[in-house]
């Protein structure tokens, strides 16, 4: 078997996993990954990621939606002006409803799309170090790097209280 690409520590305890992550960061590890059945604030803090850019997409999507809604209502009304009930061809109040709904619709769809994009989904096939237990009750921390780093990682995981440490 070839040299392992990484090492995974399986943790039954949240704080253990958090500790492992912390020490990895302390050792200046850049390339590691954490699997968890639930998103825990402790983990998020340990990882200390910067704000997700999803929100930018959300805002852009929403604004596009608004613009589209009003444009659509106005353009189609002017395409063949038909007067109903003596009301003006461009009647703003009703068009607000349309603009609102398209804001929501396009805004949310773009948000979801952005999530898929940023999270790299859909990702079919196997991820290195993933273990089915990670969707059940175990936390997994995977460290990548050269042989030396991996050896160090093994020790860190054990020290943090990993129930199991294996190469991948």
């Amino acid at each position, binding site marked *: 078997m070839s040299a392992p690409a990484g090492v995974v520590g399986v943790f039954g305890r949240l*704080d253990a996993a958090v500790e492992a992550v912390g020490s990895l960061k302390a050792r200046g590890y850049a390339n590691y*990954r954490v699997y968890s*059945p*639930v998103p825990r604030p402790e983990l*998020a803090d340990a990882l200390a*990621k910067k704000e997700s850019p999803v929100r930018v997409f959300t805002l852009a999507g929403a604004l596009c939606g608004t613009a589209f809604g009003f444009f659509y209502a106005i353009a189609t009304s002017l395409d063949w002006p038909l007067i109903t009930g003596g009301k003006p061809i461009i009647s703003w109040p009703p068009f607000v409803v349309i603009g609102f709904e398209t804001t929501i619709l396009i805004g*949310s769809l773009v948000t979801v799309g952005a999530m898929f994009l940023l999270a790299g989904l859909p990702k079919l096939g196997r991820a290195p170090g993933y273990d089915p*237990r990670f969707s059940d009750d175990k936390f997994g921390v995977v460290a990548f790097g050269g042989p030396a780093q991996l050896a160090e990682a093994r020790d860190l995981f054990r020290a943090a209280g990993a129930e199991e440490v294996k190469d991948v």
Partner: protein
Amino acid sequence: MATLATPVAAAPVHADAPPTYAETTRDVIATLQPPGRKYFAGMALVLAGLAFGAFCWGYQLRYGLGVTGYQPPIFWGSYITTFVFWVGIAHSGTLISAILLLFRSGWRTAVYRAAEMMTVFAVMTAGLFPILHLGRAWYAYWVFPYPNFRGVWSNFRSPLVWDVFAISTYLTVSATFLTMGLIPDVAAVRDQARGWRKKLYGMLSFGWKGSDREWHHFGRMYLYLAGFATPLVLSVHSVVSWDFAMAIVPGWHATIFAPYFVAGAIFSGCGMVITILVPLRKAFRLERYIRVSHFESLAKVCLLTASIVAYAYATEFFMAWYSGNPFERASFYSRAFGQYWWATWIMLTCNAFIPQLLWFKKVRTSVPTLFVISIFINIGMWFERFVIIVTGLSHEYEPWQWSYYVPRWPELGILVGSFCWFSMWFLLAIKFLPSVAIAEMKEALPPPLKGEAHR
């Protein structure tokens, strides 16, 4: 699904202790066990009802709306009533999943998945009615503004077009919201499954692994989606209410309608959630997850919204009197004491009076009682829409054109069919998808920490 984890014991040893992550996974996935005879019997019943509904619609399409009980000037009847009813039902789902998420109220986690399923299926049901109440249903697509050879777009001044946008947006967004919430759970199911199911759930989970990166963006997305869904849920029923409020029909033309309808919608929705959760919880033995306290919270929401609705009724009558408008006065007098008095009083009893029982903790915490009350709420809210629509139209400006309408069998058949259509989807869903949110359930549980006794 024999290829899944073994089911939990009938009665867990420590029933009221919070379940562990593993138990949660196992218990929830256990709900996807192959169904028993009862399930199939129920499904058969539902399909039969659906078939009858379909027949009724076919009959109506062939001969025309004459087969219904419509009696001018009552041009809208049970169909629009049922439409509004289902749209209303749909609302609590989003309320619980989105609004309560923003408010970070913990009790939602146990019930929101079922509520969301209900939302999506209720909208799917409601969406049928504007189509099948049409005189020429085969041209329903004409209300969508798309480039066409008729050269005419749809009239954006018409509340019905607002409906088209509101309802389709609502369906899309709530369905998306449901799907997104399902991703981690489906992944969990995938990891417990084998064979082709593993593949299937693998696809459905989009290859979700629960990595830090995924969770990072997922959390944001979910939050913003909730942020969108919240104004949406409030807008949708407002728009629906404007179908009436924008018309000049006495009894319809009122500014109170939007909030009044939204409150009513949440009221009926929570009622329906209770109606659905009680049997679900029993059948799937989810007592440890869907707790009585959850029902009590639901009951409190019902009590609140019921009070708002009752207040709205009072306001309507007061304004009719206070406005001095003779048409409004006559309309509301006939609503209470006219030929539709029975409908009105059913409405008042079920929506305003019976829910007052919920002031008592005993009632709120007794699941069977809640179930019975929720049934009354469902009936009452159907009649609320019937009263608004039919009594309004029956007693309009032209006394010469006053009239009386009662639904005929094809309408009732389609009403039954709609319930069966809804139930069909729900029955399918609870056997293919986890009806309790696994990941979020775990989120709500105390995490396993060092130094704890190994359970």
